[in-house]
């Protein structure tokens, strides 16, 4: 059994409620932090833990906290990013629905470390029933002296508010989230200045993902050093993976980052393999924005090593033969799935979600979608594949926010690894609308490439 830090108590009946949560060791970390540690000591523990942002970018959390500007007399804010919208990702929802107090406790400790007295949870609007759960948890925490004025007699004040979004993927980008929280359109801001200097209402602000903030609780409980012993290398601790697509047991799993991708997909402890005896064709292991990999490159790196569920191993090979951990949205495609159609659906998603502020993303995402739709419907030309490649290349890196990259990468990776399937759609237009390309050679073992000197 893999060791767990976040979901270790998720099976306990009633853990959603304060009393049960408290009885099972809840708020011990908050007590420890507020009563026996200074804010800097808490930040230091988080740094030591090696915790990396769980929202997708994987930026070291302790470092992010240390960038927060601390001018006198200006309030600082912590904002919890619960705008979970990356296709394939549904782990934060699980945490908030089933163990809301873990998040509240994480927010309390983190706010204490950052010196924030007013903290917001920005949750995607579609999770319409979860604010009620969170607000109930907040009210119970208040009642028991964990929020409000002079918490547990330590002199620290904190209020947590829940803000619902209203349907915009882009609000998962931290500056767009801040704009939205200010009651505006979710247009990402042009950086610099970064939120750590000028964020919410022009005050220094830290925006962290739900899972990141929840992970602060075990870090304080067991100490940063101990936390960093989980996982491997720079992938410390545990990670929630939301597995979906063609799997026997889709769902949210907590892994300590020391298992292989193969084990994750096929073992009974995790996803239990692929239904109906089908074979694995492809996988997007970190949410829709990260590069898709064919089965052969997913299970083994280009060097022939077993691919592990860690930031480094998934990244092995860069964009040429690797992918990313991203937000941990693990999408599995079996041999019956069409990569062109899947890529089209993702392009449609990014087109729908582009805020429209900067031209490459506004115009390019729609263009890619239309070209992909043509290819999928048997109306494509060979030159369309190169055109797609060129469009994505001109979007990537040239936009205000990472949505441009997120829209470009899935298209690039699909063409890079599944060009045969795209070409088959062009050369067999009639067949392409009736049946799928199938597994083809995408699971064949690859010849191991000698190291390039």
């Amino acid at each position: 059994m893999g060791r767990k830090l976040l979901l270790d108590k998720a099976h306990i009946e009633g853990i959603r409620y304060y009393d049960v949560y408290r009885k099972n060791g809840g708020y011990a970390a908050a007590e420890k932090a507020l009563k026996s540690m200074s804010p800097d000591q808490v930040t230091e523990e988080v740094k030591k833990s090696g915790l990396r942002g769980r929202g997708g970018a994987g930026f070291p959390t302790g470092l992010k906290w240390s960038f927060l500007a601390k001018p006198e007399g200006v309030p600082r804010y912590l904002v919890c990013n619960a705008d979970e919208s990356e296709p394939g990702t549904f782990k934060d929802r699980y945490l908030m629905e089933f163990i809301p107090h873990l998040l509240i406790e994480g927010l309390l400790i983190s706010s204490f470390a950052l010196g924030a007295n007013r903290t917001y949870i920005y949750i995607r609007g579609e999770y319409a029933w979860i604010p009620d759960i969170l607000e109930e948890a907040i009210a119970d925490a208040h009642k028991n002296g964990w929020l409000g004025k002079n918490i547990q007699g330590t002199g620290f004040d904190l209020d947590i508010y829940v803000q619902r979004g209203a349907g915009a993927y882009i609000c998962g980008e931290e500056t767009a989230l801040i704009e939205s929280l200010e009651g505006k359109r979710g247009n990402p801001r042009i950086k610099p200045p970064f939120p750590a200097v000028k964020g919410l209402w022009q005050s220094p602000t830290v925006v962290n993902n739900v899972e990141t903030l929840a992970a602060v609780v075990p870090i304080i409980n067991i100490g940063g050093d101990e936390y960093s012993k989980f996982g491997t290398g720079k992938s410390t601790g545990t990670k929630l993976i939301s597995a979906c697509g063609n799997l026997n047991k889709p769902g949210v799993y907590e892994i300590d980052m020391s298992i292989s991708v193969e084990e994750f997909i096929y073992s009974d402890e995790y996803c239990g393999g692929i239904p109906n005896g089908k074979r694995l064709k492809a996988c997007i292991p970190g949410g829709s924005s990260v590069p898709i990999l064919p089965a052969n490159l997913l299970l083994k790196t280009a060097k022939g090593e077993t691919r592990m569920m860690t930031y480094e191993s998934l990244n092995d090979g860069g964009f040429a033969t690797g992918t990313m951990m991203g937000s941990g949205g693990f999408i599995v495609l079996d041999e019956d799935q069409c990569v062109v159609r899947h890529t089209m659906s993702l392009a449609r998603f990014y087109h729908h979600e582009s805020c429209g502020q900067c031209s490459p993303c506004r115009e390019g995402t729609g263009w890619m979608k239309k070209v992909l739709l043509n290819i999928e419907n048997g109306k494509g030309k060979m030159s369309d594949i190169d055109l797609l490649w060129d469009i994505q290349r001109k979007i990537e890196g040239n936009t205000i926010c990472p949505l441009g990259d997120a829209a470009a990468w899935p298209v690039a990776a699909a063409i890079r690894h599944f060009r045969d399937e795209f070409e088959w759609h062009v050369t067999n237009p009639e067949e392409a609308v009736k049946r799928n390309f199938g597994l083809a050679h995408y699971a064949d073992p690859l010849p191991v490439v000698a190291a390039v000197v």
Partner: protein
Amino acid sequence: MAVQFSEEKLNKVKEIIARYPEGKQKSALIPVLHLAQESFGGWLSSETMDYVASLLQITPIEVYEVATFYSMYNLKPVGKYLFEVCHTGPCMVSGSDNIIAYIKEKLGIDVGETTPDGLFTLKTVECLGACGYAPMMQLGKFYKEHLTKEKVDQIIAELRAQAN
């Protein structure tokens, strides 16, 4: 009919505004628009938006800009029950296309249309964060997950009964 919140809802608006520092009441716009949509027929008319602007002391255009940006606000009237079926990648590989086709056939409407009796509107939406429980749709405040044809039948029958 003039657009006007009930006393209870006005208190709710006040409570929302109090979540933000003094003078930052514009932040309440998105939650108050949700409240307005729930209260005034499931969509936002320009009267409703102007009313929200006056409550928050901002200009109407600031409200229009925001309301047209976010996909959850309906700018046109919708049926009593709104089926918002996800069709993004993970749902698609789990069979959302079949579910959408089935609902279309069952209700006799296309995506974006409302049944003649005004009961059901069908929309396709992008990822709702329930990929592991696909195919799925949003129905009002809640999600309906692991959809099958039988489950769709059951949902529609229940809603019809509820409406009568």
